C-alpha cells in the first residue's frame, strides 16, 4: 500500500496530494440540515450536490436530501437566475420545506451569480424562507462552508426585539456530529440552562427508524428559535473556524455577547464549556457533572501507562484538532505532528503555544497541509498512534501505525455519529479508543512468551 510514496523527504509546493480538507458546499449542506424542516439547495451543476449528499450519507449513515439548480452549459454561460427561480418554485411545491437554504458552488461563484437578488426576485410562499450563503470552493474548506451557512442563519433570521434580554444562552456547537450536539445539550439541560442550539442536527441525522418515514424529521432548530436567538443574553460560539463568524454576526446585529470557546473536546475544553454556561446563565453545576468529571480523572490515573509518553500524529478539522491536541497533552501523550487541511495561521499559533507549554519541542505543525505532508513526516520519524479521519487509513497501513478515527469524515466505521467525543463522556470514549488501539497493538506485536492476560 502506497509503495509509490518517495522514500526520502521531498516537498511539493502546489496543489494537494491526498487532501485533508474538502470544499465549502458540503459544510453548508450539513449546517442547513440543522434547521428544522430545511431543504438544502445547491446552486450549480448537480454533480456537486450528488457528491456532497453521497459523502454526508456515508459518514452519517442516514438520509441526506438536497436539491440542485442542475446547471448545464447554458446556465453556465448566461447565469443561473432562471434555474434558481425554477428551483425555488419547484422545491416549495413538491417538497414543501419550511426553509430552503441555498449555497453556491464553485461554478455559480465563478460566473458571479448574485444569489440574494435572485432570491428577492423569486416567489417564496407566505411564511416560508429562503436563506443563502456564498460558499466558493476555492476558498477555505468544508469548515468555512459550515461557518458561512451558520452566519447566514443569523443574518437572514435572527432578530432582536429591543426588549429585556431573555435569561437564555445560544449555543453554536460547531462542525460536530449529532451525537456531540446531543451531549452538549444534555450537559446544558443537566445544569438547568435555558438555551437555543443551532445548527442542531440531532433527531435529523441520528433519527430513529420507526417504519414511518418523514422527509423532515422532528429535529433541527426551528426558525422561531433562530429568530429568537437575537434576544438571548449571550452566545457560546464553539470552535473559531466553524462558529465565530455567526457568533460575531449575532453580536453585531442583535447585541448578543459572543463568548468564543473551543468545541468541548477533552477535559479542559469541557471544563471551560461548563464554566461558561455556569457564569452566563448564573446556575450551579450539579453534582452529577462533578461525578462525571471525577470519573474522567479516575480513568486517566488508572490508564495512563497505556498511552503516556507515546508519540501521536493528529489531523482533521482545526476546531476538532486544537482541543484534541490539548486533551492528548492532558493524557500525557506527545502530539508531535499536528495538521489540518483548512487554512488559518491561528491554527499554527494555538497548537504551537500548547505544545510549547507541554515542552514538546520536536514537532511539526501545519495548517493547510495534506496527507502527503503528514506521511512524509511520519516516514522521517515514526509515531505510535495516528488520530484522524478515515483517510488516515492508507497511512496507517503503509506505515504500520494504529489509527483512532476521530472527526469528519469517517466512512469505514460504525456508530460514530451517535457517540459523542465531547464532554466528559467524550473524554472517556477517547481514552477508551486510544487505550484499546494501543493495547490491541501490543497484543498483536507481542511474542508468545510476552502475551499476557492482564494489561
Amino acid at each position: 500500500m502506497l509503495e509509490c510514496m518517495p522514500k526520502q523527504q521531498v516537498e511539493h509546493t502546489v496543489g494537494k496530494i491526498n487532501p485533508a480538507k474538502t470544499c465549502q458546499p458540503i459544510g453548508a449542506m450539513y449546517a442547513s440540515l440543522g434547521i428544522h424542516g430545511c431543504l438544502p439547495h445547491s446552486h450549480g451543476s448537480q454533480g456537486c450536490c450528488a457528491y456532497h449528499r453521497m459523502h454526508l450519507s456515508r459518514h452519517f449513515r442516514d438520509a441526506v436530501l438536497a436539491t440542485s439548480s442542475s446547471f448545464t452549459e447554458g446556465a453556465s454561460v448566461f447565469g443561473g437566475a432562471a434555474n434558481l427561480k425554477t428551483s425555488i418554485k419547484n422545491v416549495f411545491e413538491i417538497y414543501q420545506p419550511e426553509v430552503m437554504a441555498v449555497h453556491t458552488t464553485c461554478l455559480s461563484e465563478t460566473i458571479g451569480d448574485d444569489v440574494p437578488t435572485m432570491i428577492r426576485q423569486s416567489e417564496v410562499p407566505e411564511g416560508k424562507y429562503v436563506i443563502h450563503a456564498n460558499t466558493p470552493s476555492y476558498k477555505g474548506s468544508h469548515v468555512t462552508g459550515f461557518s458561512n451557512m451558520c452566519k447566514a442563519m443569523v443574518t437572514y433570521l435572527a432578530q432582536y426585539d429591543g426588549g429585556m434580554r431573555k435569561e437564555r444562552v445560544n449555543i453554536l456547537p460547531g462542525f460536530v456530529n449529532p451525537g456531540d450536539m446531543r451531549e452538549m445539550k444534555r450537559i446544558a439541560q443537566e445544569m438547568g440552562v435555558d438555551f437555543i442550539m443551532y445548527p442542531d442536527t440531532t433527531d435529523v441525522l441520528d433519527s430513529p427508524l420507526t417504519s414511518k418515514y418523514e422527509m423532515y424529521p422532528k429535529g433541527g432548530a426551528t426558525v422561531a428559535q433562530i429568530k429568537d436567538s437575537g434576544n438571548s443574553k449571550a452566545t457560546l460560539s464553539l470552535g473559531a473556524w466553524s462558529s465565530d463568524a455567526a457568533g460575531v454576526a449575532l453580536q453585531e446585529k442583535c447585541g448578543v455577547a459572543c463568548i468564543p470557546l473551543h468545541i468541548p473536546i477533552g477535559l479542559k475544553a469541557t471544563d471551560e464549556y461548563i464554566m461558561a454556561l455556569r457564569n452566563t446563565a448564573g446556575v450551579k453545576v450539579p453534582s452529577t457533572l462533578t461525578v462525571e468529571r471525577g470519573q474522567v480523572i479516575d480513568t486517566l490515573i488508572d490508564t495512563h501507562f497505556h498511552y503516556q509518553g507515546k508519540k501521536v500524529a493528529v489531523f482533521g478539522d482545526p476546531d476538532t484538532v486544537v482541543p484534541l491536541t490539548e486533551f492528548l497533552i492532558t493524557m500525557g501523550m506527545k502530539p508531535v505532528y499536528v495538521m489540518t487541511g483548512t487554512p488559518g495561521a491561528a491554527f499554527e499559533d494555538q497548537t504551537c503555544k500548547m505544545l510549547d507549554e507541554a515542552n514538546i519541542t520536536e514537532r511539526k505543525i501545519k495548517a493547510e497541509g495534506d496527507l502527503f505532508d503528514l506521511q512524509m513526516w511520519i516516514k522521517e520519524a515514526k509515531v505510535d498512534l495516528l488520530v484522524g479521519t478515515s483517510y488516515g487509513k492508507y497511512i496507517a497501513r503503509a506505515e504500520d501505525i494504529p489509527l483512532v478515527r476521530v472527526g469528519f469524515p469517517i466512512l469505514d466505521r460504525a456508530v460514530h455519529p451517535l457517540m459523542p467525543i465531547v464532554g466528559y463522556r467524550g473524554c472517556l470514549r477517547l481514552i477508551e479508543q486510544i487505550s484499546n488501539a494501543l493495547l490491541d497493538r501490543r497484543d498483536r506485536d507481542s511474542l508468545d512468551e510476552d502475551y499476557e492476560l492482564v494489561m
Partner: protein
Amino acid sequence: MTISDIELEQMYSRYPDKVKKNRKKHIVVKEGPEAVQKIEANTRTIPGILTQRGCCYAGCKGVVLGPIKDMAHIVHGPVGCSYYAWGTRRNKAKADENTPPEKMFSTMAFTTDMQESDIVFGGEKKLMTMIDEVVKIFHPRAITICATCPIGLIGDDIGAVAKAAEAKHGIQVLSFNCEGYKGVSQSGGHHIANNNLMEHVIGRGTRDKVGKHVVNILGEYNIGGDGWELERILKDIGYTVNCVLTGDSSYLDIQNLHAAQLNLVQCHRSINYIAEMMETKYGTPWLKVNFIGIEATIESLRQVAQCFDDEELVQRTEEIIAREVARITPSLEQYRKICTGKTAFTLVGGSRSHHYQYLLRDLGMEVVVAGYEFAHRDDYEGREVIPTIVADADQKNIPELHLEPDKELFEEGHIHLSMSQEKFEELKKRVPLSYYGGMYKCMKEGQIMLDDFNHHEIESLIEMLKPDIFFSGVRDKYVTHKMGVPAKQLHSYDYSGPYAGFSGALVFARDVTNAMTTPAWKMLDAPWDAPAASGGAPDA
C-alpha cells in the same frame, strides 16, 4: 402488483404543470409484450428536482479514468471534486507483472486545489508546476488531467499545458475537458473519456495477440472484484483476457486494447463508444454481455464461445458452466427459498438495473420498478432506436469522434475471429454482435421504467408498491430504510462483492437474504407501542 392510473396521477399531482408534463415522458408503464413505448432520456434534469444524477466529471474521472491504476490522475480545480472521487467507487486494483507496487496510484488523490487568486489569474502555471512535481516525486507512466466546473469558465487551456508537459517529461499527458456542467449527467463524461482514450492511447501499444481466443472486457470496473471473477471464469475456459477496461487496468494494457479478437461489453452506457469506434477503426467485433446472474452468465459465455470457430472451446465452456453451477447450487438453494416471490426496485447506473433483473430472477424475485440515472434511449429501448434519437443542444456539446479504418491494423470481423466470411455471416444470425436490446424488453406488463428518477417518485412508488427490497445507491439507501424497506447499494455493493459471475451470484444471494431477514426488521415497534391486550391505547 401493478399500479393504477389513479395511483400514478396521485404521484404526479404534487408536480407543478410544467414538471408533470416533463416527467410523464420519462416514466413508462409497460403495456404488454407487443407494445412499443418510447421513453425520454438523456435530457436536462429539472432544476430543483431531487435528482440522483451526477455530473460530467463524475462520469469521466469518477467512472472511466479513475480505475486506471498506474496513471496519476490530476484533477484541475478546487479541492472538492478530487476529494469525492478518491477511493469512493471501490474499484479494486492490485500490482501484477505489468505494474509493480511503486507504480500503483489507485489510493492517491492529486488536485491543483485552486484558490481564489488562481481563479482570477488563471491556473495553468500552477497545473504545470503540479505536473512537474508529480513526475519528479512519483514517476508515473502517464498522467491524466481532468477539468472541473470553474476551469472551463476561466478558460485555462489544459490541452496546451498537457502538450507542453508531454514534451517536457516525455510521458503521455492526457487532458479531459469534462467540466461538470457539460451535458446533462455523468453520461457526457463517459463519452469524453472514451473519445480521448480512443484517440490518444488505444492502438499505441505494439503487443501481438497473446494466446488463443483473446478478448477484452469493456465497461467493467472491478467493483468489489467483479472483474477478477470474470477473468477467473474466462481464463478457466481458455480465453486470454487482454484488458479489462478500466477495472484494475494499466496504461500499458489500454495501449494494447486493439490486440484482442473480440470486445465483450459489460456496461453499455459507459463504454459503447469505444466498442463502436474500435469496430470502425480496427474491425474488432463486439458483443454485449451480461455477467450478472447465473442464467445471464451462462447465456453470455455460450454466446462468446460461439464467436470463435472452435468446438473444443464450446465444450470447455459447457464443462465450466456445469462445474460452476454444481458448485454454487446447493448453497444458493437456501437463499432462493427465502427470496422466491419477493419484489424489488432496481434504480442505478446506465446498465446495471437491467443486468440485475436476471440475477434477481435467478433468485425467484421480480423487478417491478427499474430505472437509470443517466441512460440514453437505447439503454432502455435497444439500439434499434438510435437512428430516431434527435440530438439536442446539450448532446451536441459533447464532441463526436469520426474515425476511419486504420491503414495497418484494420481487419474484417471474420479475420479477427479467425473464421471464414460465410461462417461469420452465419454467426451474426445466431449471436447478436454489435447489438444491445435494452431493458424494456426484459420488463413485463405493468412494470415501470423510470428515467432520471427522483426522490418524490421513489417515495411514492415505494409507498404504493411496497417492494421487499430496494436496490440503488447510498443516497437513497437510508431513506428507504426509514420507510421500512431493506436497501442494498448496487454502486458499492455495501462494501461486499463480487456480485458478478458464479461466485458473485452467491455472494449477492447471501447479502440480499441477510438484508431482508436481519432480525431487527421484526422489532421496529417498541413493545409498549403495541395496543395492550386489554384494549388500552399504546403508551407513546
